[in-house]
Every structure is written in C-alpha cells, then in structure tokens.
C-alpha cells in the first residue's frame, strides 16, 4: 500500500519533468541587455505580454521555456532598434489581442470603456434631478419631498 502510494506520488512528480526540454535557455531569456535604458524598455514591455504556455502570467513572470524564448525575442528586437510598440504589434499580428495585457479599444472591447462613462452620466443625471427637485421643494416651502 505504502509502496503503491510512493510510486503514485513519484509518477505525479515525473510527469512534468518528462514534458520539458533539456536545451539551454535562449541567450536573452535570463540575461539583461547591457544598456539600462533598453533593458527598462524591454522589462516594461515584457510585463505586459502574456505567456502563451501559462496564460495567467506575463512572460516576465514565467519560467516556461517558451516564455524565455519570447523574452529573447523582445530583448533582441529592442537591441536591434525596434520600438516596444512595434514588437507588441508583431506579436498581436501572430496571436491576436490575447497576447497583450495592454488593453486597447477595439470592436469587441469598446463597451468596457463606454459602460463606466455611461453609468457615471446616468448617475449624474439622476442626482441632478433629485437634488434639483429637493431644492425646488425647499423653495416652495412646506410641500415636502416627493420621495
């Protein structure tokens, strides 16, 4: 029984290992760029790009080999003189908006930006009407509140 349990736990631990490669990471996966300004640009961009393997993490947060390869792309492209916006656009052209954590207004996302504005406008209109009524009520003396 105990042996079976140990084997079972060992099997659980062995599976993730079997699904990993043994290649060394790409040159710029874990190495920073020499120029601090360029590295800062790269770091800011990497924090807003989604890891495709581990989809709730940014590529800056992830240790997945593929995230390392994506960081290498970002750093080597920055080094080659590409702007962060170009690199983000390059990735979006391949994976869609999903790869970017930086929200943009598009055909499918505009309600997210429009609804809060709309709600604030509605609340403002309701408040103005109510306060206006109350003031009218005060001015009219003892008519009292409608609510």
């Amino acid at each position, binding site marked *: 029984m105990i042996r079976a349990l140990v084997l079972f736990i060992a099997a659980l631990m062995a599976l993730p290992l*079997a699904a990993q*490669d043994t*290649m060394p990471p*790409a040159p710029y996966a874990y190495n920073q760029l020499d120029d601090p300004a360029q590295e800062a640009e790269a770091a800011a961009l990497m924090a807003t790009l989604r890891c*495709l*393997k581990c*989809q709730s993490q940014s590529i800056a947060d992830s240790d997945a080999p593929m995230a390392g*390869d994506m960081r*290498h792309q970002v750093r080597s492209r920055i080094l080659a003189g590409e702007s962060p916006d170009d690199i983000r656009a390059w*990735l979006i052209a391949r994976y869609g908006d999903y790869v970017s954590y930086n929200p943009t207004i598009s055909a499918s996302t505009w309600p997210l930006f429009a609804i809060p504005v709309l709600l604030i406008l509605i609340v403002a209109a309701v408040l103005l009407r109510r306060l206006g009524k109350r003031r009218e009520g005060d001015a009219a003396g003892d008519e009292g509140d409608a609510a």
Partner: protein
Amino acid sequence: MRVRLMRWVPLALFAFFAGVAGYMLTQEKNQFVESAMIGEQLPEFALKPASAGLPGATRSDFVGGKPRLLNIWASWCLPCIAEAPQLEALKAQGVEIFGIAIRDRPEDVANFLSRYGNPYARIGADDISEVQLAIGSSGVPETFVIDAAGTIRYQHIGDIREDDVALLLAELEKVK
C-alpha cells in the same frame, strides 16, 4: 409606483450579473490560442537540420509543387508520440510533411524517429522557438497546412487524432 419599481433595478442588475458569471463558470474554457497568421505568407526562415541524415527546413522548401504540412513538434513532447502513427498515415496518403523540432537535441530527435517512425521529409531545428513564434504557434504539437505559394492556410492545434487525418487531407485538397 414607478419609484417602487425603480428600487428593484439594482437588484435586477446584480442578479443579471451573477447569472452571467454563473453561466460563464459552467462553460468550458478554450485554452487554445489560435494563430492570427492564417491567410498570411509563411515568414522567411532557415533552420539547420534537427538530426543527422535529414535536411533542415527553409521557407523556400515550402514553395512550389503541392500543399504540404508543417508539423511543430518535439521529442520531449508526449502527445507527439500519440500523433506519430497519424502522421505516418498522412505520409502513406502521399502528403509531404516538414517538421520543425522545438528546443530539441539531435540525438533525442534521432532516438524519437527510430522508436516512433519518421514521417518527415525535412526537420528544421528551432532551438529558441523563433519560427514557432513567427507563425503564431503556441505549443507542441501543432500542424499547419501550407499551400504551394507558401501561404499558411489552416492550423490544427494539439495532436492529430485518427479522425483528424481525413480532415487534414480535405484541407490539403481544398488549397491545391
């Protein structure tokens, strides 16, 4: 009366929101990230051979003749083992399959091919996933249909199962 009804609006809104959230929780999440490169040209690349005895792969190898399959795989990828017989079946139907091995070692590739068969005419070694990223692939295995003009026409995500073989043959036929 109107004011009474208005009082229920926030509760109704909350119930609607809770309902939508509850419904979405029961829906299966699509984990696949589809490539946005379907219909686009295969980008320029030149990969060294992934294993001795087989040529590497470049973009120009995909141009001319008939549509081909581009199989993104790796010897360390378990579903790729399950996929091997289906690739073999596609090859038997006359399909030319070029592989790209992701982050792989030549000896591991050779070992995989000798154990599970070699359906590939070429295998390029993509040690830093650069071609994989350039075509919008987000994992192994994935299979792309590339037409004779070098345009990406179809993406199959995950291992090819038995019933996917006919589907891929149809997609290859479609872009002939």
